[in-house]
């Protein structure tokens, strides 16, 4: 059995393609696959919800079966990560947390099912860099709004963090989580930005995605289904996760929702994925 530190380092290296599999080989998908996340109604914060939805969409695109479990202590079971540390995926006896490590593992062990296997080498490199950029930007924007914007903090973030624990543990937990989120923003150099700057960053990201969709449209002369052609890839899953969460959340300050709604191509892209992979459950009730 691996020691604690060994597990932590092995898991951080989960996106290393040469971990335990020879290139070209494929491992069978385990029978017991479980996705852990905090309680959606009471505990889940916006950036965590976006991350969980992105992973679920990705697994559905790959047609890999999994079971969902919602529990209080999902974030404590998590093995760590660069941003939200959620969701946690258990494959047999191995654990992976966050979108990128999970996708990395699926790519190197499920060669037939992995959705980006049809992309060229250079396109895949560009796409990986774009996944990192989009995940960073959206997650940091959501974190910034949840923790630094007081109406949203009071109405959405604060009750959700402390809901699983009784007082005084809830207050302690709230303070800890705030400190962690602010530290994250400081490391990525977003802590000094105000709402307008965050909106500018988000708009830049949405513009990039919208331009990609537009380029696909003009290339194929059909309405663009996905960001890299007629088949979906992990970037589509990630974008869907964040856009759908933002659109379906009702936050006190509408900055995130308004920014995303200003790009109709993105909204149409997310609706398409919702229709195909989630049977319109995520965005179905919205205009």
């Amino acid at each position, binding site marked *: 059995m691996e020691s604690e530190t060994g597990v932590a380092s092995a898991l951080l290296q989960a996106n290393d393609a040469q971990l335990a599999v020879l290139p070209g080989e494929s491992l069978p998908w385990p029978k017991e696959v479980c996705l852990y996340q905090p309680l959606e109604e009471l505990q889940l914060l916006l950036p965590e919800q976006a991350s969980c939805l992105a992973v679920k969409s990705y697994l559905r695109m790959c047609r890999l079966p999994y079971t969902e479990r919602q529990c209080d202590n999902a974030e404590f079971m998590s093995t760590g990560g660069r941003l939200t540390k959620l969701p946690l995926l258990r494959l047999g006896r191995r654990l992976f947390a966050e979108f990128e490590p999970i996708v990395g593992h699926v790519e190197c062990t499920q060669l037939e099912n992995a959705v980006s296997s049809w992309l060229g080498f250079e396109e895949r490199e560009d796409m990986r*860099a774009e996944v990192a950029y989009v995940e*960073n930007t959206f997650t940091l924007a959501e974190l910034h709004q949840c923790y630094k914007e007081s109406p949203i903090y009071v109405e959405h973030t604060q009750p959700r963090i402390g809901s699983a624990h009784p007082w005084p543990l809830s207050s302690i937990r709230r303070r800890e989580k705030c400190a962690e989120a602010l*530290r*994250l923003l400081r490391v990525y150099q977003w802590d000094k930005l105000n709402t307008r700057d965050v909106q500018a960053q988000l708009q830049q990201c949405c513009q990039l995605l919208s331009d990609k969709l537009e380029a696909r449209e003009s290339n194929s002369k059909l309405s663009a289904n996905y960001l890299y052609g007629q088949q979906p890839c992990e970037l589509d899953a990630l974008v869907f996760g964040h856009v759908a969460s933002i659109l379906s959340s009702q936050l006190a300050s509408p900055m995130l929702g308004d920014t995303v709604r200003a790009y109709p191509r993105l909204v149409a892209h997310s609706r398409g994925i919702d229709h195909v992979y989630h049977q319109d459950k995520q965005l179905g009730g919205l205009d």
Partner: protein
Amino acid sequence: MQLGSKLHVYKGEWGLPSIDFECLRALCLLRFTRCPMEIETNANPLRSGTGKLPYLQIGNDKFHGYKDIKRILDIEGYPVDAHLNTKQKHLSITYSNWVFTQLHAYYHYYLYGEPNNYDTTTRGLYAKRTPFPFNFYYPSTYQREACDVVQVLGGFDINDKLEKHEGDYLAANAKKCVNLLSRKLGRKVWFFGDTYSELDAIVYSYLAIIYHITLPNNPLQNHIKGCQNLVNFIKRITKDIFRNECYSSIKMTKAPSQSDTMLTPSERKLMETDLNTKIIAGVGAVLAMGAFAAWRGIYTQLTRSSTDYDGIDYEDDDIDEVLD
């Protein structure tokens, strides 16, 4: 651009214009776009409102940090991505972010986090560029910042024992990043062909420092040496674009025009003013002695003795002549 705008950065070393990654990034933005702004290398980090360099001073306003400085330059008409088309701009933004996530943790751990490296090299570098008495505690603020960076991006705590540090994992990621950058650069002058971009600035800022710094433990340095095109990239930018800002405290074999490379311009100025002070002191001493002498009446004695000598009338002589 207002006259008198100045960018304050740390002085360089090993032939580089600055020792600090953030300062180097800001310098790249300035020099790539040929923005006419002065650069102050004898900067005092505690004079910037936030206590960190770089900072940009325009009139009475100060702008701290790379993001603010970039925003100001964009507004003033010196955007760094001016000559790129849309697709290249997108790739520049995406890859700059990707390089940041891969190399930031490595840079902070091996420069500030690893105890041996920090104590022998980095601390001294920053302490020499900070005025007394702040140089005793100021470099450790960088170490505290590095603790946060490594905790978030690397997943371990610098304050733990050395065996628990996962520096190898950071080094492996950094090496993969360098390989990809080398592949992307190929034989081109800049990453996007003929024109500079933000990606060039960020890659140069990380790699130039990691390549030149003399640390006891720096696994990426040899790896970069193996990528000849990246080495040429670093040397070309240092030699061509930062010709005037390079500094090295070791005397180079090619003799520079001044006889002393050990003195910076401000130290040379101090020596000149020293000479002036000595001249003024000498003149002052002579005047003081003269005034004392006048007070004692030496001048009147001297003048009296000379007139007395001239006006002596030997009356006895005249009488002798008449009698004879």
